[in-house]
């Protein structure tokens, strides 16, 4: 590895940053010091506050308290533009280039070099090309500036984003899970670019879950947990085990309801589930029992959502079989799954869950319309109304009325409506994908209580969760996935966070 030109003084100081959202203290007095020409890894479980901290740095969130200083000077960052101008760039996990335009147009977007005189300004294509070539040469990148961006591989687009950051004269580049969609060779290329950036004195804040990667390229590691900074260490002093124990070492502070469910006979048997996409899940087999809560743990990229959506017929399978009550079944579309008494609460509530402009009532009964149909093909309004009112009462949904558009309800109440939607279909198997994501603490407990009640009634529940305490507090068994593979099924009563984390990190080299 190339030696760093690290200086003693801090390039960036984030001092005492705090940020609260309704119901959550996302950041609590966090201090982060970054030196020029170093790679500084930022680690922590999902929800530890890494992204919130970076969003404060990038001007997306305004911190409630604390200050940000660059080279000793206090920065005021009202928006991302201000952050860019101060020399802070961010390479997002998901890249958003303009796909149909050329590479160089993407790099200089919003600041095209112009020539001509008022009012006849034209984009100076030649200069843009020259500047782009120069930039790519410095970074040892081999891309034709006039290539249509959409034709490039993910890795090339990513290096493009990095080049763009450099062209902004970035002194600090934040990389959020930059290797999550790269192959081995592409990762090497990225690391070469990072080494080049370090030599130029650029500091890199590197967010990743991949231990080996972190230990290999970072100079310093800061670990966060529950919105607090645990500490900063020299990467040389750390090992994978040390990182894991510092990431998870926490008491179970959140409370979970008493569960009285008793897992019974096997209801669903899944054998050799393999996605038709090579980088997704493969060869996953498990069984689900009556009245059981089966937690599914793993890190970002473990392909848990993909697996569960394949069960429900949204994603396609290359191979694999499933048996329901011992009988083989095939599910190709959500309609099939619903017929087999399955229900899916999706992870992205706004994208695949709610109908924002429809009323709470319509949102509640939508999956159950068949049952309200009379022989004249008309819907029986009184029963739709009654089921909605019952749901409001049963799940304690707080809504001004059943006619209120669902977009005006809080996240927790929207989630309850979605749960109600599926409960009306009287499912035997509930697939819950991050059921408490983005919900405040009080509503979380209510959702946990509902889940526990359902299991006690004999319903089988698969619950994906990225929150360790939630998995440990709610599951009878915990199935852990890593990079598309099943790496272990643990007993929910005896498992520890360290165990889950070890299994989750097994294939994330």
């Amino acid at each position, binding site marked *: 590895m190339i030696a760093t030109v690290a200086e003693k003084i801090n390039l960036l100081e984030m001092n005492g940053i705090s940020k609260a959202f309704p119901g959550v203290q996302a950041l609590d007095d966090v201090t982060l010091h970054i030196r020029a020409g170093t790679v500084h890894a930022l680690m922590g479980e999902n929800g530890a506050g890494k992204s919130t901290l970076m969003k404060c740095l990038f001007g997306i969130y305004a911190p409630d308290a604390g200050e940000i200083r660059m080279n000793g000077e206090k920065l005021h960052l009202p928006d991302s533009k201000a952050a860019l101008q101060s020399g802070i760039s961010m390479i997002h996990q998901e890249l958003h280039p303009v796909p149909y335009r050329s590479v160089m147009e993407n790099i200089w977007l919003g600041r095209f070099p112009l020539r001509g005189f008022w009012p006849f300004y034209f984009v100076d294509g030649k200069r843009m090309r020259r500047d782009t070539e120069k930039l790519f040469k410095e970074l040892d990148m081999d891309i034709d500036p006039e290539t249509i961006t959409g034709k490039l591989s993910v890795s090339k687009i990513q290096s493009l984003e990095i080049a763009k950051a450099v062209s902004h004269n970035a002194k600090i580049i934040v990389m959020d899970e930059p290797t999550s969609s790269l192959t081995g060779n592409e990762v090497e290329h990225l690391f070469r670019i990072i080494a080049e950036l370090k030599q130029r004195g650029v500091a890199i804040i590197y967010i990743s879950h991949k231990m080996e990667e972190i230990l290999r390229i970072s100079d310093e590691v800061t670990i966060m947990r529950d919105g607090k900074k645990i500490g900063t260490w020299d990467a040389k002093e750390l090992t994978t085990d040390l990182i894991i124990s510092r990431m998870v070492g926490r008491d179970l502070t959140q409370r979970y309801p008493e569960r009285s469910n008793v897992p019974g006979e096997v209801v669903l048997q899944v054998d050799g589930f393999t996605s038709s996409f090579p980088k997704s899940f493969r060869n996953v087999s498990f069984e689900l029992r009556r009245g059981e809560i089966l937690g599914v743990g793993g890190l970002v990229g473990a392909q848990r959502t993909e697996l569960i959506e394949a069960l429900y017929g949204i994603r396609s399978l290359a191979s694999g079989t499933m048996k329901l009550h011992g009988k083989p079944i095939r599910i190709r579309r959500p309609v099939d799954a619903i017929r087999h008494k399955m229900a899916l609460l999706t992870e992205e509530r706004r994208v695949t869950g709610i*109908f924002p402009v429809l009323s709470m009532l319509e949102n509640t009964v*939508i999956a159950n319309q068949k049952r309200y149909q009379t022989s004249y093909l008309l*819907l029986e309004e009184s029963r739709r109304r009654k089921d909605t009112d019952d749901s409001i009462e049963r799940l304690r949904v707080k809504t001004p009325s059943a006619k209120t558009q669902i977009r005006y309800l809080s996240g927790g109440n929207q989630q309850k409506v979605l749960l109600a939607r599926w409960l009306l279909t009287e499912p035997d198997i509930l697939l819950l994908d991050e059921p408490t994501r983005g919900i405040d603490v009080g509503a979380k407990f209510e959702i946990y209580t509902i889940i526990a009640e359902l299991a006690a009634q004999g319903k089988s529940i698969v619950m994906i969760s990225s929150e360790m305490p939630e998995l440990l507090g709610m599951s009878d068994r915990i199935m852990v996935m890593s990079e598309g593979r099943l790496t272990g099924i643990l007993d929910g009563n005896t498992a520890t966070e360290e165990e889950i984390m070890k299994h989750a990190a097994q294939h994330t080299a």
Partner: protein
Amino acid sequence: MNVSIQRTKAFVTDYAIYIVLAVLIIGITLSDPSFLSLSTLTNILHQNSTKAIIALGAAFVLITGGVDLSAGRVVGLSAVVSASMVQLADYPRKFFPELDTLPVIIPVLLAIAAGLLVGLINGLIVSKLHVPPFITTLGTMVAVLGINSLYFDMPPNSSQPIGGLRPEFTKWGSGTIEIGSFNLPYLVIIAIVVAIVCWVIFNKTRLGKNMYAIGGNVQAAHVSGINVSRNLLWIYSIAGALYGLAGVLEAAKSGGASNNYGNMYELDAIAACVVGGVSTTGGVGTVPGVMVGVMIFGVINYGLTFIGVNPYWQLIIKGLIIVAAVAFDIRKYLAKK
């Protein structure tokens, strides 16, 4: 005080289109009090009945988040198809000289079926080939004009306007029922019946609920077990059938047909829908809203001509109302976010 201002604001926002309609009527009446009469009402209703039926068809598609540009040309197709088969036996330039006198219902059903077929094709292209509705219906709009013109150009007709329609047919377009001293046009009754049927479909059937759901969030609709493509097939087909019916009635009303019938009607229909509160992004819209939207344009057309406003000025006023109505309506969604 503050609360009452807020309430007034909410009232104005919620009932904006009704207020616009009322203001128009009051304004025109102030300018010429004789505007306010039963015959004005009958005339406006009669003039706008077919437009209402087309607008309802367009509303089905708009609420799913699509748009149907083929409406006008389908009206033209079904007008020509129906007219070509209901000419008087002794009419000199008959479209089908050898054709016996058919029961009126047969050409009517054939013409509606032609509309339905175009709608079905639209639905298939949108739901199975995933071509955006705008492009799909742009394509069928152009192609349907071609098909209609080929048919219209067949010898011996050779693109002559079709005339000499039988009174059993034309009475549906121009006949009235006497209620006391009041003559209620059949057309108005048909439009009201269609509106009621549409209201029932929108509000009381699974198809209607699914239509709102698809327009509201197509991915969530899929996850909720709604068969999106089958529902879209139904919706585009119903829309096509409604344009077909409107075409038949246009032919009956005018006592003839040519391949240019219905030209640009889709734009009037879409304008009436959006002014009536149908969201072009889908998921929102009501039958009464669409009806008021149609009536606003009906009152503008009739009323402004009645008080002698220059027709070119009428176009400018219509254009302003379309944009203003949507700019106002969209505030409902922006402000509360």
